[in-house]
């Protein structure tokens, strides 16, 4: 028995949410680590390592430069190695995460770099060790930007995950293409657009609210 249309919607929605939440979680964790590494090892950072810094920065740029759909194909062997298959939702999570790590690293890096140098100096003067400065000064002070960046990431992921249909990952975007584009069922296309707009708007407002909550600068 073939699934009803509403079952198809529910499944596509679940697939999209899985891809988005898992890859965002992975990207934020690794992106933050890379961003802190980049900021800390910068020539004027807490642990200056200019050569290492340059190398990490180049790697991040490479992944930033590759369009997602190409990255998806290029990473197929790596994906197979990691999840054992190149098809399905979990196979899509791999390129999505890697694409997003590079993106989020830069966002978080900008927020961390914007922390007033005077605060770092004051922390040194008060006898903070360097990791205290990362933990108690850099990260908390950059938090509003870090949270704001997460919102941008979630929305970017909702978009990119539509393309993951190419590896049979399913999701709302895939449903829209298969029914709306290939079978000319404009009703489906329209409904999915409405769902996506509601989703993106909710994420945007939720993110802004959270950003305001953690911002004590005014």
């Amino acid at each position: 028995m073939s699934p009803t249309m509403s079952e198809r919607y529910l499944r596509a929605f679940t697939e999209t949410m899985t891809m988005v939440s898992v890859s965002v979680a992975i990207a934020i964790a690794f992106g933050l680590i890379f961003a802190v590494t980049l900021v800390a090892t910068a020539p004027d950072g807490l642990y200056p390592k200019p050569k290492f810094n340059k190398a990490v920065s180049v790697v991040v740029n490479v992944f930033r430069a590759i369009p997602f759909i190409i990255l998806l194909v290029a990473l197929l062997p790596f994906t197979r190695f990691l999840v054992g298959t190149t098809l399905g939702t979990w196979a899509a999570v791999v390129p999505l995460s890697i694409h997003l790590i590079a993106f989020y690293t830069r966002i978080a890096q900008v927020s961390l770099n914007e922390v007033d140098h005077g605060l770092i100096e004051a922390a040194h003067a008060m006898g903070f060790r360097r990791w205290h400065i990362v933990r108690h000064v850099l990260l908390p002070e950059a938090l509003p930007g870090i949270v704001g960046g997460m919102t941008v990431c979630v929305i970017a992921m909702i978009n990119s995950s539509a393309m993951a249909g190419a590896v049979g990952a399913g999701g709302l975007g895939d449903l829209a293409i298969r029914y709306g584009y290939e079978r000319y069922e404009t009703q489906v296309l329209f409904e999915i657009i409405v769902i996506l707009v509601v989703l993106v708007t909710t994420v945007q407002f939720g993110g802004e609210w959270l950003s305001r909550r953690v911002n004590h600068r005014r």
Partner: protein
Amino acid sequence: MLWKSAIARDDRLRTPIQEDPEPALNHIVFERIQKIYPGGVQALHEVSFEIRRGGIFGIIGRSGAGKSTLLRAINMLERPSAGRVLVDDIDVGALAEPDLVALRRRIGMIFQHFNLLSAKTVRENVGLPLKVAGVPAPEVRRRVEDLLDLVGLADKADVYPSKLSGGQKQRVGIARALVHNPEILLCDEATSALDPETTHSILDLLRDINAKLGLTVVLITHDMAVIRAICDEVLVLDGGRIVEQGEVWQVFGSPQGDATRALLRPMQHGLPADLAARLLPEPPKHGGHAVLALRFTGETHPGGVSLASVLALAPDAKLLHGGIDRIQGHAQGDLLLAVPVAAMRSAVGARFSPDALKVLGYVANDV
């Protein structure tokens, strides 16, 4: 008593430096300090001087003279290119990171722009230096409460810094700087962003702290009134070199360097412009007044000047302009007098030395 609180004796806050039973007179010693910034700017040229224990030491100089560079060498926020800074005879530049961290906990610092963490409340800002040093939470809490009482901000403990005025932020900055019971307090233009009244209250607080805790205060300011109000000693820096150093009353009373005179000019009661425009080098043929400057350098009239001796110049001598300050017990300033040429007795030289009383010039008719 607040300052005998347990934290001060906490082993974790101890540095490898042992306290002398009889501490040396000099607390901080600069030995031929040079600083060349990357890019080639030489900010300091072989600067050597000492800072006495327990005093308030001022550093003045025009913008770019190297004041901040000098101050920041004390806690190695800026490493000198050559020379040594000794704090309690310890060469600060030679310390490894853990020892430098320990030393920095004995040196508080406050900043022009306060540098409070925006993501933390007042209480968290003040307590954080103790927290990262591993002091247990209940002790941190007690100590923070004591300090907020001291700076008069007990009711703002749970407020974020963005909700405070500039003066209140600086009080938080001071509380935070004192949290480790430091022996030295460094202030880089700590009152420059504050209005005059707030400046006054912050200066009172600093003087209070200096007196109560006996800590050595080193401060940079562009405001000569700050030096006059609270400093014991002052160092004048220009182009990375020391112009002069000494007791405030001496340096302010008889400045030796051009740079010092330039810095002090706004404070002095010079000749008002309208009078200066009418001043003649010679007495007019008939009538007219002599304009005299009675100078108080701190040495010229140590016990003040009796009005009788002023009147002795001429019974109808007039006070025109000026003011006298008492700095560290020494009278300082200028008084401009007008004396009718006809009535002026030749006794000027007999009562006042030429240094103390100068004829600036003459005006025709009335002043």
